[in-house]
């Protein structure tokens, strides 16, 4: 698409006598900048705002509500404030590495967006190694965190960096194994290919494909939470233990980059889960929709983003609920629980695919029913808690 556009610009002489390669380079850099500033940064920013409001509600607070309508511009104000802050570099820090670390982390995060699909057409590059590419690129984040922890020359940071490394190295394995269970079913690594084999209805999603993928979904979810350093696995920057872990010494724009990645990663994790297990951008084929590519893609993109943000909010909600695990519990969770179950899943799915290559309808419907009954029971419990707590008692006439 971009290539055609640039070709047309060269053809009608708008770019003058610019060589074709230079025009391509400028065009690609421009498009990259547009994607980064117009989309990726905003995703991170909006996510921080949403997180703060979600937490606030769970904690009987209101949250940021002063900048812009309902505080919607709070993230922008915070970002600008951080950009204008002085950047202090500790005297004893390894200056070059210290400066490099935030960019390594950011690169690891932004490049993942290359393969994240938003609709059947809206994807930067539908790599045929898509899911592998994303998992390897997001692993670059840990390299940055390690560098940050080491270069700060602070023992708290160092412990944070080491914890991050140990954590991600361990959790890559169950995550990868669970991702492979889906790949066993689809036979393709391409993100678009995986989505295309699912349907719009929950019974066509891979989460309800077999009991093994059902369990696999939760294993992937937990492992990806751990890889994204989210509660209950936010040990690398456990603020009550390690002050702020690897970001202790950072300030200003570099600090901003770390936070950009932390919240942006939420979206990436969620997008991976939606792609693999929750039907991606699949929408019901309403007559007439298929004829108009614009409306089709828009509906698909909205579906995908809504699903992803539901996942993002779930992760925030988990963070607001659960305490942090200890570092030995982190390891035993991975090696003693997630990994064996992931192996069983892998073998089970292999058998399942061998027996029912086209899927087993009854199991899919039964699992869907199970999923829905879990949701219904959940809301029953929610109503129970609401009823029991009764009306909030306040002594101050102001609230």
């Amino acid at each position: 698409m971009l290539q055609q556009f640039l070709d047309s610009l060269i053809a009608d002489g708008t770019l003058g006598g610019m060589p074709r390669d230079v025009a391509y380079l400028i065009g690609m850099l421009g498009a990259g900048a547009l994607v980064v500033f117009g989309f990726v940064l905003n995703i991170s920013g909006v996510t921080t705002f949403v997180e703060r409001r979600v937490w606030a509600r769970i904690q009987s607070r209101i949250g940021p509500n002063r900048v812009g309508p309902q505080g919607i511009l709070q993230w922008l104000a915070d970002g600008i404030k951080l950009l204008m802050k002085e950047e202090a570099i500790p005297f004893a820090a390894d200056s070059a590495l210290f400066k490099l670390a935030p960019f390594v982390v950011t690169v690891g995060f932004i490049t993942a967006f290359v393969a994240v699909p938003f609709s059947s057409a809206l994807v930067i590059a539908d790599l045929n190694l898509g899911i592998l590419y994303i998992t390897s690129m997001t692993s670059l984040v840990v390299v940055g965190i390690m560098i940050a922890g080491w270069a700060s020359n602070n023992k708290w940071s160092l412990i944070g960096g080491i914890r991050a490394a140990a954590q991600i190295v361990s959790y890559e394995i169950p995550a990868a194994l669970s991702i492979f269970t889906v790949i066993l079913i689809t036979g393709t690594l391409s993100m678009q290919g995986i989505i295309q084999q699912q349907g719009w209805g929950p019974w066509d999603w891979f989460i309800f494909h077999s009991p093994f993928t059902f369990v696999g979904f939760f294993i992937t979810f937990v492992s990806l939470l751990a890889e994204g350093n989210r509660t209950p696995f936010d040990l690398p920057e456990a603020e009550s233990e390690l002050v702020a872990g690897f970001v202790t010494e950072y300030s200003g724009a570099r600090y901003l980059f770390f936070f950009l990645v932390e919240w942006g990663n939420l979206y990436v994790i969620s997008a991976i889960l939606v792609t693999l297990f929750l039907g991606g951008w699949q929408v019901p084929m309403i007559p007439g929709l298929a004829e108009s590519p614009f409306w089709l893609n828009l509906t698909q993109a909205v579906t995908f983003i809504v699903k992803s943000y539901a996942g993002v909010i779930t992760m925030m909600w988990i963070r607001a609920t659960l305490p942090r695990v200890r570092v030995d519990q982190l390891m035993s969770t991975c090696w003693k629980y997630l990994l064996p179950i992931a192996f069983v899943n892998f073998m089970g799915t292999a058998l399942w695919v061998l027996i029912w290559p086209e899927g087993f309808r009854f199991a899919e419907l039964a699992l869907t029913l199970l999923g829905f009954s879990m949701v219904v029971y959940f809301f029953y419990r929610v109503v129970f808690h609401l009823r029991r707590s009764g009306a909030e008692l306040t002594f101050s006439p102001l609230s």
Partner: protein
Amino acid sequence: MVGGFNAYFSNIFEVASTVFEGMAVTFSHFVRKPTTIQYPDRMAIRVQDTLPYRYRGILEVDLEICTGCLACERACPIDCIVIDAKKDKSTKKMMLNRFDIDIAKCMYCGLCSEPCPTGSIHHTPEFEGADFSLESMMRRFVKQPVAAYKPKKVEDDPEVAPILERGMRYLDEFADPAGKTGTDS
């Protein structure tokens, strides 16, 4: 072996079920009302107007009914009150030359307002005391020397009467009925 299996799966089940329950509790908070008070600007009434009567805010002195008995100065454990009361030889009246309270030092304990016979020194619900200099934290109540109040059987001065009434009510409601204990030695 079997016990080990049981422990293994019951562990998983326990984690899953308690996390499920905890998430239900937190989810129920999405529909509850927040308890935040948006101090100071987004409020229907000032906080000061909602505080209970006994609230111990910044001290205030009604010089009109101050008898110059120095009970508050003696009661203050940090000596943040300084009173200069002298008997004027010519008029035979107790003159208040100085009544200073260092609000920066005051710890709002309320020990000064208890022995006051007229409720002249009392706490207000005002609590916003931040300022830029220590000098501005000094409350100098006597601008020019005034005669101390002399208790009468019936207060007839129309200007002083309402202030005294307020002071006595303050004493009644603030201090307990048995509060007038002890003798001033």
